[in-house]
């Protein structure tokens, strides 16, 4: 396995770059990072819609969440792959397609996590903000979301890890990411799939272990700042 890694390190890391698009681990990381960065604000917006007292926000946000949750991701990818070019009238790069599909998908799931975080806070937090004269959005931004997002870090981490793994589905539309690179190597070697795919599994695992550690560190740093507080649960 070590020698497969040694012989194909560059392909696994950056794909065929500079002779082709950036691929391998770099593409996987890039896909995941861009998708997460866009899905996070998307998730917050959808969550705000989901908890909104106004139907004009609540209904569309709920519709998006219900539709996305009811469909498999792979179907989403195909849909983006075949129909987005038709709609906008020009071809779209596989990477872009994948990012669009992932962002739609992950936003909806993140939204439900964030909504749970918002609704789990004692009602008094919202009331205290409004009683001071802050408007709804100020209360959300300064009081509710900082607490809700922090409390939901573990669930959001699971969703982030999911996203990293789901980038491997880009393989089916020919995006040259890590799984694609592994498959290329397998096609060349032909006789050693066990080792190649073990190597692939290990790479994903280490990547996500790193992500877990990063979130755990953040969580501890914030927790230490607030002296290990958990939000006081209202008793009335």
């Amino acid at each position, binding site marked *: 396995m070590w020698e497969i890694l040694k012989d194909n390190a560059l392909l696994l890391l950056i794909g065929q770059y500079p002779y082709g698009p950036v691929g391998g681990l770099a593409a996987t990381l890039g896909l995941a990072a861009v998708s997460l960065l866009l899905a996070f604000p998307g998730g917050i917006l959808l969550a705000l819609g989901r908890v909104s007292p106004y139907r004009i926000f609540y209904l569309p946000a709920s519709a998006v969440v219900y539709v996305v949750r009811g469909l498999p991701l792979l179907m989403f990818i195909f849909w983006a792959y075949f129909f987005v070019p038709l709609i906008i009238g020009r071809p779209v790069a596989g990477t872009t397609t994948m990012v669009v599909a992932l962002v739609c998908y992950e936003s909806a799931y993140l939204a439900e996590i964030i909504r749970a975080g918002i609704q789990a806070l004692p009602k008094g937090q919202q009331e205290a903000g409004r009683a001071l*004269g802050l408007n709804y959005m100020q209360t959300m931004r300064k009081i509710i979301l900082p607490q809700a997002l922090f409390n939901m870090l573990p669930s959001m981490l699971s969703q982030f890890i999911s996203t990293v793994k789901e980038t491997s589905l880009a393989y089916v539309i020919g995006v040259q990411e890590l799984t694609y690179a592994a498959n290329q190597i397998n096609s060349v070697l032909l006789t050693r799939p066990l080792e190649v795919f073990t190597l692939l599994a290990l790479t994903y695992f280490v990547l996500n272990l790193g992500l877990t550690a990063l979130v755990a560190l953040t969580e501890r740093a914030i927790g230490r700042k607030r002296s290990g507080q958990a939000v006081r649960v209202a008793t009335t």
Partner: protein
Amino acid sequence: MIRFSQVNKWYGDYHALKDINAHVKAGEVVVVCGPSGSGKSTLIRTINRLEPIEQGKIEVNGQDVYGKHSKIDELRSHIGFVFQQFNLFPHLSVMENLTLAPLQLKRANKAQARVRALELLERVGLGHKADAYPLQLSGGQQQRVAIARALAMNPPVMLFDEPTSSLDPEMVGEVLQVMKLLAKEGMTMVCVTHEMGFAREVADTIWFMDAGSIIETGTPDEFFGRPKSPRAQKFLNEIRH
């Protein structure tokens, strides 16, 4: 300063406030008392529209709280509200709890807000806790911070919704002390409380509520000495034991 005119409120079929007509003068300290479920908290929460009302009118400083065109956020910033559960923001330090609203509402710059916050913390005896986080404080300290936070917007009116009811007995005194200080300085206050000693000593007027109505009002001497309604007599008898 605060005027209720023919206010009615329902929770579904339940008639929570019945024909409330009452008036709080500037500088007056009103204590609202009565048995559990009589509508005291509901009443005080209608003053800054934390609870909607179905009928009637409430004015604070001449402004219609439930008016279609009233700027509720602006209005609320001139009404201090202290909750039974403190409701401090646990993710912010004591200092940040006090400066959040003045900064967000652009009533002060950062330096001014900090100076004012420290001044208020000194007044409630917690100047040394500016950098602490709420959950590092005792209940009594948290409630005093909550009072300081409400005062940070310099409201002419302060509302207290059972401010000592979720405190351990030994911490009730320190919170009442701060409230007495405020009353002495001439703050207009409406307090829902079960602390009859405080009511007797500090209140100008007592409102006694039962089943959603204010059934008796009077000075503490009148109310505690010569309660008129049988319901108030019964209530006072019960709390004396």
